[in-house]
């Protein structure tokens, strides 16, 4: 048994090194003074300074944050309702179709979602005159569509482990459905809604492919900008930007993990 666990340990260590090698290397090279990204030219913060002065990056980051905030919020509302219905309604007509539409976006190649949504927007503009122009709104709609599937999955798995007796008791005591929903159901699935929201927010901030299709002139999100820059190779200011994002995400994820662990221990 001993030999087996050392070889397992070796594979696992290799796996973790593989997962973190690129992340660590980007962080290190973001402090590299040299413009030649592969040569170490000493420690410097110049790429962070140039990042702060780059208005194109700042304005696209702002646009991305706005889209992510709106789409995560709407996706959480819609995804929660869908997850709730799938969990609590039992059999109903159209259930299979709903399950399909909520599962498929999890694995559907982004390029197909992007191209098909673009054609929808073009057709809608032709028939109804809306959306007149593509941009932040159409990107947000696209992001809501795929991220509500993730929210629904998270909410469903939370609901599956919950018993309904509290809601039933509240109903017995004469609570109206809407009141029971906001006073009992929402607080008890709140952790799932929060993680669903964070997931939707991250997915929106990360999307290049779908946004490239459904965006219009003038609306360039941060990932679209990064993609157009890095297509030509490594650029040092993107290293700095990546480090900032890595730092924010790591702090957030670790804090969330600590928080849930403390709560579990209580």
């Amino acid at each position: 048994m001993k030999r087996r666990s050392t070889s397992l340990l070796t594979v696992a260590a290799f796996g973790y090194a593989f997962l973190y090698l690129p992340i660590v290397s980007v962080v290190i090279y973001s402090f590299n003074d040299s413009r030649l990204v592969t040569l170490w030219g000493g420690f410097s913060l110049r790429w962070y300074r140039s990042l702060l002065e780059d208005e194109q990056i700042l304005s696209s980051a702002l646009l991305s944050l706005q889209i992510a905030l709106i789409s995560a919020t709407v996706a959480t509302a819609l995804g929660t309702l869908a997850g709730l219905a799938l969990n609590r309604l039992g059999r109903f007509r159209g259930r299979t179709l709903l399950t399909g539409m909520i599962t498929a976006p999890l694995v559907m190649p982004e390029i197909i979602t992007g191209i098909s949504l673009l054609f929808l927007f073009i057709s809608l503009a032709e028939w109804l005159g809306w959306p007149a122009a593509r941009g932040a709104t159409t990107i947000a709609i696209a992001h809501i569509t795929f991220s509500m599937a993730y929210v629904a999955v998270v909410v469903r798995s939370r609901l599956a482990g919950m018993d309904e007796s509290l809601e039933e008791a509240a109903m017995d005591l004469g609570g109206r459905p809407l009141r029971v929903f906001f006073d009992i159901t929402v607080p008890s699935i709140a952790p799932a809604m929060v993680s669903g929201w964070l997931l939707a927010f991250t997915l929106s901030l990360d999307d290049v492919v779908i946004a490239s299709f459904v965006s219009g002139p003038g609306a360039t999100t941060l990932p679209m900008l990064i993609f157009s820059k890095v297509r030509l190779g490594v650029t040092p200011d993107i290293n700095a930007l990546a480090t900032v994002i890595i730092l924010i995400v790591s702090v957030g994820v670790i804090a969330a993990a600590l928080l849930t662990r403390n709560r579990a221990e209580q």
Partner: protein
Amino acid sequence: MSWTFGKRGEARGETRGDGRRQWLRAALAVPYGWLLLFFLAPFAIILKISVADPLVALPPFTPLLDWAAQGWERIHVTLDNYLFLFQDRYYAVIYLSSIKLAAVSTLLCLLLGYPMAYFIARRPPRWRNLLLLGIILPFWISFLLRVYAWIGLLNTHGVINNFLQWLGLTDQPLPLIYNDFAVYVGLVYSYLPFMILPLYASLEKQDLDLQDAAADLGARRWQVFLDVTLPLSLPGVIAGSLLVFIPATGEFIIPALLGGSDTLMIGRALWDEFFINRDWPVASAVSVILVLILVVPLMWFQKIQARREEGVL
């Protein structure tokens, strides 16, 4: 006594449930309608554009008539877009190459992910959460930036080549980037967490007594693994493989950033057809065929996902 109580409770539950059911059903209309409009309808439209005569299909694309003019002769008949795809060997080769790249990456993810998931599942609970966090953390960091990071590592004068030369293992830089090798690295790297998490879920649930019993009865280590552990973890293997294979087949960013000009992946071909050749009907046909290729794995994934949720219930 308890029987009557249970009976009454059930009956009451139905009437009480009705108001709630109605409310839920009304509330469901919003996400349902949203998905019908923004997820299902687009597929109908893409299908229509892929088979429609451009004279009819092109009015929605009037702003692009300038490029469409060149496309006219090529798309007279409705199924011409598909015929074009079938006659042009180029596309068959790209589809097959995408499937191959995705399938090999899935296998590599499984080979690396299985021991990792097994390793994590057999740690004490305190360690397990930390190790799982280590798998999930990269997933939260931008996919695009993580793929980008590999450019710096794999470059001709990148970190890995510099390191190998410093070790004296090679005096010429190895061709690590802008080829299929780099695409494999990118695919395995990006999709590994999607393989590990379902594998872990199914391995963690396993009763260790079963393995001990098999070992006690004289089974060798590999026999225990092949006869007990592996079959019991099969749902995780299938779920993880589908979670890797389906999106990897249509992957665009990884071949675009790490692949070479000879790396054939349908996601990139579709992107070029759309943004560079601007042939929208052909791009639609390319997407429809990609969806058709993925329909079987998609439905399989659906079934597993449904069974998983029932299992939780």
